[in-house]
């Protein structure tokens, strides 16, 4: 092991504290070396890479279709958006037109996954802050979503649902009613979460005015998604650069005002409600027709380069794809939201206590496999 303390100058009142890699609040494996003065954080160095699987290298050794299941593993809390971004990149490269029904199914699944992902955020964040009960509540609702996914594609965690040119399976007959019931029940459950959290004095003390992120700083460090929308920056790729027929859906982009931990929490809670709206619209307006465009078995897209961008639950994710005209991608660069969001942590946590760091880190909703890839 290299000595991380080597280049850090300490005065007499300062000391170093190692947090992680296995720490309950790091949601995966992240090591933070904190430079402290008493209980206050002077500086912080994140050490990532414990979950590095070199997915980008794997991509170069697989065909375009074979790489789809690997995209699931980039962010296992929200696999559908990772699938979607890959499918969009390859379709853009090859100029494939996706049938409308497949586009709607993609939106439906992505939004269900967004809710599932935000539920993990909510439950785990509450655990970090010392409240155990909400975790059980949010995972109860998440279970229903996983059942819906299982019904559709047979998987509960890594779905491998999207295909180049469409999706793998159509909805089973019982899906419609179950999903409708879910959105109806879930909106009431969101009210329940809000009753537990939003104006709870303990929660407010832990989150209000903590870890304020100015918009300019967030953009500079590459923060995106609810992290930057919590500061009031109106930027949602679903609205700005609609993909997969998002332009046909009516929904709002929730914004925070100040950019503290509480604002980021509020944005996510409201996004869950908006996602419910989109799911209902997708279910009711689901067009008839094919679920997959015709794609040749030996798929060789033309040589060239494309970029794809989507709004994943944690922020912007996308691929930079270089093709040399063979069956395998030449180079895939994966950009994930947590990568940018984690870089902001150093700025955000300076001057706060260790207990606040846990709240700040929780509010960024970082998923470590997405950072390490």
């Amino acid at each position, binding site marked *: 092991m290299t000595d991380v303390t080597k280049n850090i100058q300490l005065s007499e009142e300062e000391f170093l504290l190692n947090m992680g890699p296995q720490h309950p609040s790091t949601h995966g494996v992240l090591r933070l070396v904190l430079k402290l003065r008493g209980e206050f954080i002077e500086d912080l160095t994140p050490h990532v890479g414990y979950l590095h699987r070199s997915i980008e290298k794997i991509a170069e050794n697989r065909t375009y279709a074979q790489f789809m299941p690997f995209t699931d593993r980039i962010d296992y809390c929200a696999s559908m958006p990772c699938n979607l971004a890959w499918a969009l990149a390859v379709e853009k490269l090859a100029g494939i037109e996706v049938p409308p029904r497949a586009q709607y199914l993609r939106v439906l699944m992505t939004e269900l996954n967004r809710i599932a992902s935000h539920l993990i955020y909510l439950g785990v964040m509450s655990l970090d802050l010392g409240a155990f009960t909400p975790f059980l509540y949010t995972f109860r609702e998440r279970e229903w979503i996983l059942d819906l996914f299982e019904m559709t594609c047979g998987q509960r965690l890594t779905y491998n649902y999207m295909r180049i040119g469409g999706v793998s399976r159509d909805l089973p007959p019982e899906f419609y009613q179950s999903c409708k019931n879910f959105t109806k029940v879930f909106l009431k459950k969101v009210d329940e979460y809000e009753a537990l959290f939003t104006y709870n004095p303990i929660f407010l003390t832990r989150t209000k005015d903590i870890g304020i992120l100015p918009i300019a700083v967030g953009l500079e460090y590459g923060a995106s998604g609810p992290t930057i929308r919590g500061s009031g920056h109106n930027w949602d790729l679903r609205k700005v650069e609609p993909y997969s027929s998002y332009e046909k859906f009516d929904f709002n982009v929730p914004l925070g005002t100040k950019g503290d931990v509480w604002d980021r929490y509020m944005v996510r809670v409201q996004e869950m409600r908006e996602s419910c709206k989109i799911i209902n619209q997708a279910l009711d307006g689901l067009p008839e027709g094919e679920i997959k465009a015709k794609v040749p078995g030996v798929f060789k897209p033309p040589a060239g380069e*494309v970029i794809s961008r989507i709004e994943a639950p944690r922020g912007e994710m996308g691929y930079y794809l270089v093709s040399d005209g063979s069956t395998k991608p030449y180079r895939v660069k994966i950009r994930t939201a947590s990568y940018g969001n984690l870089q902001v942590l150093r700025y955000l946590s300076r001057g706060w206590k260790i207990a606040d760091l846990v709240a700040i880190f929780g509010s960024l909703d970082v998923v470590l496999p997405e950072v390490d890839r």
Partner: protein
Amino acid sequence: MNKEQIENKITQKFGSAIEIQKTKNPEPFIYVSIEKYIEVCEFLKTDPDMCFEYLFQLGGVHYPDDRFEIALTLSSHKHKHELVLKVKLPHDNPKAPTATTVWEAANWYEREAMELFGIQFEGHPDPRPLLLYDDWNYGYPMRKGWTGPDFIPMPDKTKGGDD
């Protein structure tokens, strides 16, 4: 600004340092010479018509004949346009000035490219490895043709369908 306007403006400003890549993409793909790289970055970020204040990603690419490139995806939240900026690096010694002076976000992307591709970024404030483990000394794994102790290449099967 649309694709043509961005391409025209940047060519007018920097002339021969710029090479426009012909693609079917809606975003401009632009090559910049290594000498003008940081100057162009600063222009792209600060110019009121460009305003690329957001670095979406930065990554290295290893082409045949040991040719290295870095590709930056930039996005402007003000004007809602995007751009891919690419730099060809010197053959024998892949080296580029750091872009962290322009975008803070470049910090980790450059660290990643440094350890995975062996591209040096001069003036980087924190050039430690990012992803690989501390005792790693098996070279630069993202280079083409790299092999390491646990690396087994996939058999070349071009047959087989989608599902």
